[in-house]
């Protein structure tokens, strides 16, 4: 083979925009990021929003994106750093320090984009940002209706690149301090405009809404609640609906501790922890597709996990490591999720396909992932909050 001929064919490929796009479409996001400095043509292609959308959509599998990793953020620590739990290949994820701010809290992760609140030195909120950690692109959000002192103000994100190249920001804000009367604003990136007070509603104190805990899937933004009911927004229709929450267990000295809210494969999941003396149960529920009720998928017992992993300190006494940070992750067969838990420095999961506890990520003998904040080792505290990370070149 004539070497000169060979070079020229490769050249034709490397310099042909269409062919190049086809090739780069099938390479992983982290490779593309590295190739931005090959040439101006490559940079232009890899930064092109149309190409980036195609690339992101190419990663979709039967209508869903699979998370590349989980980011574990220590609760109450406002550092831009986090621990990474790889779900696919080994992932490096840049910390949030490209957003120059004294402190940072992640509010929500949504199909590749994150919404964060930035804090100043006095731990007051100084702004809200959306960002894509893969490309380090970030943008400060500006509101038409700003937060009022001492009134609740919650910011959520609705984004699914497989459905639409645009995102929406949903704000739930209290109109008057302690009134429990809220207005809902929606920002559409497509038109770069706000609709203020699309809905006005009132909740009661006993409703125990947790507007800071939002999950977007199937075109709906759902909020967690510790009461009997909760709310979700059908985003396109801007229509607020109610949904039931699982009935609390009564008797047997069972104390409900935490409700972990999440989704996998387009299905809402809720894991509720119950503490009964030295035992700990995790009731895993899945929402019916018509939102009529939650059905109990499984009652997991931490005692069973302790038998599978005797070396882990999973005891649920106060002031032991215990477990934390429940997340729901799609497995290969997208129907059944895995319940992923941080447990004494390792990541274990319960796989519904096999009905078994498994080790999901072990950083190595004697090594622990994550260092929980020392002051909060009590069972009632959620030491780590996991966020799904999707490696994506998406440009907004």
């Amino acid at each position, binding site marked *: *083979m004539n070497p000169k*001929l*060979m*070079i*020229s*064919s*490769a*050249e*034709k*490929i*490397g*310099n042909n925009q*269409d*062919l190049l796009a*086809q*090739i780069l*479409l*099938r*390479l992983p996001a*982290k*490779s593309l*990021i*590295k*190739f*931005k*400095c*090959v*040439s*101006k*043509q*490559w*940079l232009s292609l890899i930064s092109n929003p149309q190409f980036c959308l195609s690339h992101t959509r190419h990663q979709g599998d039967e209508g869903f994106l699979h998370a590349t990793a989980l980011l574990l953020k220590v609760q109450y620590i406002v550092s831009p750093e986090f621990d990474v739990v790889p779900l696919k290949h080994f992932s*490096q*994820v*840049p*910390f949030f*320090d490209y957003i120059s701010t004294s402190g940072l809290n992640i509010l929500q992760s949504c199909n590749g984009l994150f919404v964060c609140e930035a804090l100043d030195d006095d731990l007051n909120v100084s702004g809200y940002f959306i960002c894509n950690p893969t*490309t*380090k692109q970030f943008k400060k959000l500006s509101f038409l209706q700003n937060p009022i002192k001492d009134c609740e103000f919650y910011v959520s994100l609705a984004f699914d690149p497989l459905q639409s190249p645009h995102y929406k920001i949903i704000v739930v804000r209290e109109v008057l301090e302690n009134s429990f009367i809220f207005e809902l604003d929606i920002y559409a990136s497509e038109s770069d405009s706000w609709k203020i007070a699309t809905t006005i509603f009132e909740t009661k104190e006993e409703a125990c809404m947790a507007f800071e805990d939002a999950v977007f899937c199937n075109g709906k933004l759902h909020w967690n609640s510790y009461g009997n009911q909760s709310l979700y927004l059908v985003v396109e229709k801007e229509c607020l609906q109610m949904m039931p929450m699982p009935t609390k267990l009564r008797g047997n000295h069972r104390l409900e501790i935490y409700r972990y809210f999440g989704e996998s494969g387009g299905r809402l999941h809720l894991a509720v922890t119950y503490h009964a003396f030295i035992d700990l149960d995790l009731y895993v529920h899945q929402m019916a597709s018509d939102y009529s009720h939650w059905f109990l998928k499984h009652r997991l017992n931490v005692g069973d996990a302790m038998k599978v992993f005797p070396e882990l300190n999973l005891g649920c006494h106060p002031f032991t490591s215990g477990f934390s940070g429940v997340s729901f992750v799609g497995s290969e067969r997208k129907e059944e999720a895995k319940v992923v838990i941080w447990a004494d420095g390792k990541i274990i999961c319960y796989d519904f396909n096999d009905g078994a506890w498994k080790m999901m990520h072990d950083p190595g003998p004697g090594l622990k992932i994550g260092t929980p904040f020392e002051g909060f080792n009590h069972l009632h505290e959620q030491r780590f909050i996991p966020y799904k990370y999707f490696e994506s070149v998406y440009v907004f």
Partner: protein
Amino acid sequence: MLLSKNSALESKDNEIFEVEESIAIQSELIKTMTTMVNSKAYVNERNQMVPEARCRKQANYHVEQNNKIVDEELSDWESKFFEVDMDDLHELFMAANYLEIESLLNGVTKRVGDFIKACKNVEVIRQTFGINNDFAAQQEEEIRKLNSWNHI
């Protein structure tokens, strides 16, 4: 039960290929060009642009692909099929792109993608593909820094 029908495809070099219809319509382009009239398939327009070599390769690809039933066998065979030099890859690429054959395109792009992944760094990519670095040194450094993920 349908009898397999053959489509006649004429290449740029005026060579005629008889290809089973089910194989021919794997190309989106050919699919849209054919119409069914009286349960016979007609090729409305001749496939003028694609030179003979490409057509033959493509026809062979599909015949073989349909002969392989077991998935493992297929993926083994596919990796061997694409273990060709850049010249052939380019030919296949142009054919797959023009004829709009998804599976062929996937195979070729994956192979070129593997070539790229095998390059140790950006400079090797430039050399392999004869790409001219048109960045100023400082520009390139800035981009590199912005997109590096190294942290302690």
